């Protein structure tokens, strides 16, 4: 394929990094829509009040931890410490999966508390919670796929100080997913 490396510098950013930021903006718009819909709907009353699952606190810790390991992998790649890259990537993936599992069990807690997604006994308050966590979880899965691709590449010695673009992209995306969760969590704490 023909590319434009010869004049890619008109903005001084790597085009793919720029593209990733645009994708992040569009994902933010999606959550912006959900959370503003949430607020508007909440103002109208008939809103079920319930406690957020305890799991969320643990999950928040897990996802912050995974951001740290991700960053660690990035630094290791910069220093060409390839075995550390692999360890940290694996750790990040494991933490990501733990987070997802934690979210699932949080859903379980919600159901135990009679907070349902749909059906006769559901209230938009609960449904919104499922949608926010679910759509975030979906994006986290795409992040995990990206991580898996990166991990495979790292086993093929394709991630090192001279080939940083991919791990940079992945790091940015992963931090974004963590940040997004923090935003959602604090949003829910304030507005539930």
């Amino acid at each position: 394929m023909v590319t434009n490396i010869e004049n890619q510098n008109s903005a001084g950013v790597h085009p793919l990094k720029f593209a990733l930021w645009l994708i992040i903006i569009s994902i933010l718009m999606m959550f912006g829509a959900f959370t503003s819909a949430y607020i508007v709907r909440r103002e109208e009353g008939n809103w079920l009040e319930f406690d957020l699952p305890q799991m969320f606190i643990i999950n928040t810790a897990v996802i912050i931890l995974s951001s740290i390991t991700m960053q660690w992998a990035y630094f290791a790649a910069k220093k060409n410490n390839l075995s550390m890259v692999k360890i940290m990537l694996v750790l990040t993936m494991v933490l990501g999966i733990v987070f997802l599992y934690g979210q699932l069990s949080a859903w379980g807690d919600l159901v135990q508390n009679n907070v349902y997604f749909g059906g006769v006994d559901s209230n938009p308050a609960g449904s919104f919670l499922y949608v926010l966590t679910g759509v975030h979880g979906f994006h986290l899965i795409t992040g995990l796929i990206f991580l898996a691709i990166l991990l495979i590449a790292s086993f093929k010695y394709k991630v090192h100080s001279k080939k940083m673009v991919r791990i940079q992209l992945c790091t940015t995306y992963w931090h974004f997913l963590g940040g997004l969760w923090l935003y959602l969590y604090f949003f829910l704490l304030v507005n539930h």
Partner: protein
Amino acid sequence: MSSTDIAINQTDMHHGHEEHDHHHDLNFFEKYIFSLDHKVIAKQYLFMGIIWAFIGGFLSVLFRLQLGWPEATFTFLEPILGGWVQNGKIDPEFYLAMVTMHGTIMVFFVLTAGLSGTFSNFLIPLQIGARDMASGFMNMLSFWIFFLASIIMFTSLFIETGPAGGGWTIYPPLSALPQAIQGSGTGMTLWLISMALFIISQLLGGVNYITTVINLRTKGMSMTKLPLTIWAFTLTAILGLLSFPVLLSAALLLIFDRSFGTSFFLSDIYIAGQALSNTGGSPILFQHLFWFLGHPEVYIVILPTFGIVSEVIATNSRKPIFGYRAMIGSMLGIAVLSFVVWAHHMFVTGMNPFLGSVFMFLTLIIAVPSAVKVFNWLATLWRGNIRFTSAMMFAIGFVSLFISGGLTGIILGNSALDIQLHDTYFVVAHFHLVMGAAAFFGMFCGIYHWFPKMFGRMMDEKLGFVHFWLTFIAVYLVFMPMHYVGIAGFPRRYYNWTGFETFNMFTDLNTFISISAIIGFTAQFIFLFNFIYSMFKGRRATLNPWHSNTLEWTTPVNPGHGNWPGEIPAVYRWPYDYSKPGAAEDFIPQNVPFSETQSSNLPQERVLE
């Protein structure tokens, strides 16, 4: 989704750079089907757009038959429509489905994907001096996801319960309850799936357009030397990037309401005497989410044509565009304002009148940048050395339609007037002139103008003229009378109005509109013939047939993969040096340095020599 394709792409980027002149033989599939070349992808979008436009147009002829001759029996339609015509009467629910599909197809599949997809893809790399899009793979993915969305939408036309029937704005609760009408059943499910894919495809495309414009401009191509087309396409993509995700959110919530028993948009509904269990939802919430996309969407449709028309008018008036910076400024203004006016579609939802006034105020401000644009086009035409090419005719027609339709926008923007006019044919007339017809004219304008670059041949100018005049006259004959019946209260989306004594006096007018619509639709076959014929048999194009300044005309007649066989030209000047006093010719392309044009340089340009 997005993360993976970037990763895949990155490998492409890496062995990309050593090979820009190297052509390994592409097989048929790589060359024409799963092509990564922006020019091929642009043509794929164009062909899809044309096919969709004819389907959408055909549907409108069908429902105009019903509106124009409400008492007639259409037995001759039975072979095409099958069960949808009973004893020569079109099924009322199918009528609604046709209106819905007409709107969806035209707004999204033709004037969003077909228009932006064609011209952004084709012109961005060629006019900014890039070898291709930032990510050819993402670009190809964008087209094929659009194709998949198209297939799904097309299939929904043929299922037993018919396609979606709740209007292109799919307001719940109607669209959320399959038991309400047939069109809210499987057809609506397919609509939602198709539109979700469509949105993803547009986002992939948009990310690519913006990245390419920001990152891949050739040497010297600063933002203020960009042709207005590129400004327009970029702003369109930004609007899409910010508004389509919101529609995706709304569609997702609607899907949950339809299939998972949630109550985001549903509350206290009785249907066929039975109470539904849904409580606590708000249908107005959907309207807010929808129109937060919906209003920017109308500018996503019209902005690319602003760019195309500016370019064509300057080129064919042989004059610099009047107020280049004002053109950019007004587009920026329109783009920003388009996000804060959505509730003018909702004046009658019982919103707080004070809030209504705020939205009315913001809405009416849009008239200012719109008027700036119109003024600049007229000023560019003023005393120009005008060449009436087909493209130019359509550009001028565009300005005319944009004025006529824009004026009624100002009327509708006043909430007090809109409460009377909402959901009447007045609104239909407004948006068909300002958006439907104007955007189609802009698209035709672009096709006639860049056909030589796309296919290396010229379209026939005489047929272009006939096509223009028939279309132009038909458009006005169709939509002008609609204002009149609209003011009288004639409602939109009614299958049959003969039951209302007051509206019976408009029977002749309705017949007249329908006849005009049929003539207008028929005229498009002249275009279709011209398009296909010229592709194979048209006069061969020269390098720069319109004596234009922009970079795409510095490529070979049939540019290959990579666009320029040698180095990419550098840019020294803005794209509108037409009829510059003292210059040898009446145009100076962007890649001509000032040192070669000493006789025409302005005092401040001398330092650049």
